[in-house]
């Protein structure tokens, strides 16, 4: 029996919920609006809301800054590269743990999770030292490897929970029908595993894109991604609000859209299956 809810109640809850939603979203909205203002309009007193001369000049100005395209490329390469590398290493591991669980599987999973909790400052200097020693400081490959390692536990865990949901009976049925291990993997398991792998990729690109400890501290010029590029605006240049807003919007827009698509996976990926 569904509870009867009057339209009046529904309307008042709706107004309240939208008010909170818009409040949370306001800083993003404001940045979006400011990115289309002239620098003068961006600091106008009183603030202007919608009625100003909309301009794209900030977007062109930021793109013309010598280091923006490079930072964007670095962000893409580092986020995608570390995710792909992580997936290649994690898929076999998660696969084996889900389908051929041993006595130690749970311990291994828990131990992997524990590595995620290691505070970054605890290993900061050794990593800088090792990177210098190997000659990879301020290089994309260094960041790809480091971000892959810090996200690997999450990737393994997410994949594990997805693979766990694939029913074992299907495998047995395929085996009865005489399918070889190879065809079992290609024709039966892979199609069922693809959605889980896709969501894992999505969430990890988001996490890698936004990572702002190692990306700031391990780069200077060559490998600096958008996180570091934006941080460089904290210099007096940051006072150019419209340009800061345009740069910010360009840095967050693609990930925000990906994030909206991955809402559901977020819960699974970040709580390690502890909340369902």
């Amino acid at each position, binding site marked *: 029996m569904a509870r009867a809810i009057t339209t009046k109640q529904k309307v008042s809850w709706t107004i309240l919920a939208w008010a909170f939603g818009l409040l949370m979203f306001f800083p993003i909205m404001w940045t979006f609006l400011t990115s289309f203002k002239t620098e003068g309009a961006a600091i106008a007193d009183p603030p202007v809301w919608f009625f100003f001369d909309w301009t794209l000049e900030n977007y062109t100005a930021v793109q013309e800054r010598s280091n923006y395209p490079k930072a964007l490329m670095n962000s893409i390469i580092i986020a995608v590269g570390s995710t792909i590398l992580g997936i290649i290493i994690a898929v076999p591991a998660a696969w084996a743990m889900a389908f051929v669980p041993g006595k130690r599987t749970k311990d291994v999973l828990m131990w992997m999770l524990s*590595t995620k909790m290691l505070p970054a400052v605890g290993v900061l200097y050794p990593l800088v030292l090792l990177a210098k020693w190997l000659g990879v400081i301020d290089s994309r490959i260094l960041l790809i490897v480091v971000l892959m390692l810090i996200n690997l536990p999450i990737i393994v865990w997410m994949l594990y929970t997805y693979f766990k949901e694939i029913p074992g009976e299907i495998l047995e049925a395929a085996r009865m029908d005489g399918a070889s291990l190879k065809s079992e993997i290609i024709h039966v398991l892979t199609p069922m595993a693809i959605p889980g792998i896709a969501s894992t990729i999505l969430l990890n690109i988001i996490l890698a894109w936004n990572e702002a400890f190692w990306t700031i501290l391990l780069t200077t010029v060559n490998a600096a991604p958008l996180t570091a590029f934006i941080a460089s605006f904290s210099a007096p240049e940051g006072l150019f609000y419209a340009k800061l807003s345009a740069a910010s919007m360009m840095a967050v827009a693609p990930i925000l859209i990906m994030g909206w698509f991955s809402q559901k996976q977020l819960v699974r990926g970040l709580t390690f299956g502890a909340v369902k």
Partner: protein
Amino acid sequence: MATAHSKSAARIMIAPAVFLLLVWMLVPLCMTLYFSFSDYRPLRGIFEPWVGFENYVRFFSSSSFLKSVFTTLWMVGGVLSITIIGGVLMALLLDRPIFGQGVVRMLVIAPFFIMPTVSALVWKNMFFNVDNGLFSYLYKWLGMQPYDFLSQAPIFSIVIIVAWQWLPFATLILLTAVQSLDSEQLEAAEMDGAPALSRFRFIILPHLSRAITVVILIQTIFLLSIFAEIFVTTNGAFGTRTLTYLVYQRVLESQNVGLGSAGGIIAVILANIVAIFLMRIVGKNLDT
């Protein structure tokens, strides 16, 4: 029917991930541990391999250590209280039948996907700035003196920024938990005339307790290592130096690697204490 063959194949499949994480964890951590017992100041060319617990004693007894611990507690505590209370309320609100629920959810969750350096800079300049920030206009409009948030109330300001980023996370997880609540139980309680507040206190809150614990633990682990928000806004000035930030400054800015490493080891130990509790909960769930 795992055969011996498939078992050894499984081991080989797991090996690379385990090996990499093992190296990642052990090598740098052992180096930090080693440095923490040495006097290592590369800029001055000093390297004394063994000074015993001197760094730990100095780190513990310096006034900046205790201060940084309090700052960390304030920040983590502040963000946790805002996100937990706000998250529960927001989750209950979003669980109501409302028009455009999907869109509201997207609005609420958006801040979580914003790059930390972007949110810190946007808040710092466009909201907190004393000359041109929106809050200053608001203060002026209300006939009050503009308030310089980042220098007058620096910890509070950073708490606001970080809480804004993490409130969506808490909301989303708590919403998932709220939605798994048995609605019949609630309806029965309602029919029996239980007021809304006691329905919340005796049915909803106990149901949410596990999710709340998980949110607290996960957020604590992430919040203990807040970095970019401080780096961009105050760079550790005005008493916003957390333990993480203090270690960063010792190690990279003043290049006192020995002292910083001792601090790093302390940070690792503190994080592990929180981690143990989280692991216990996750581990329990793995069995069911």
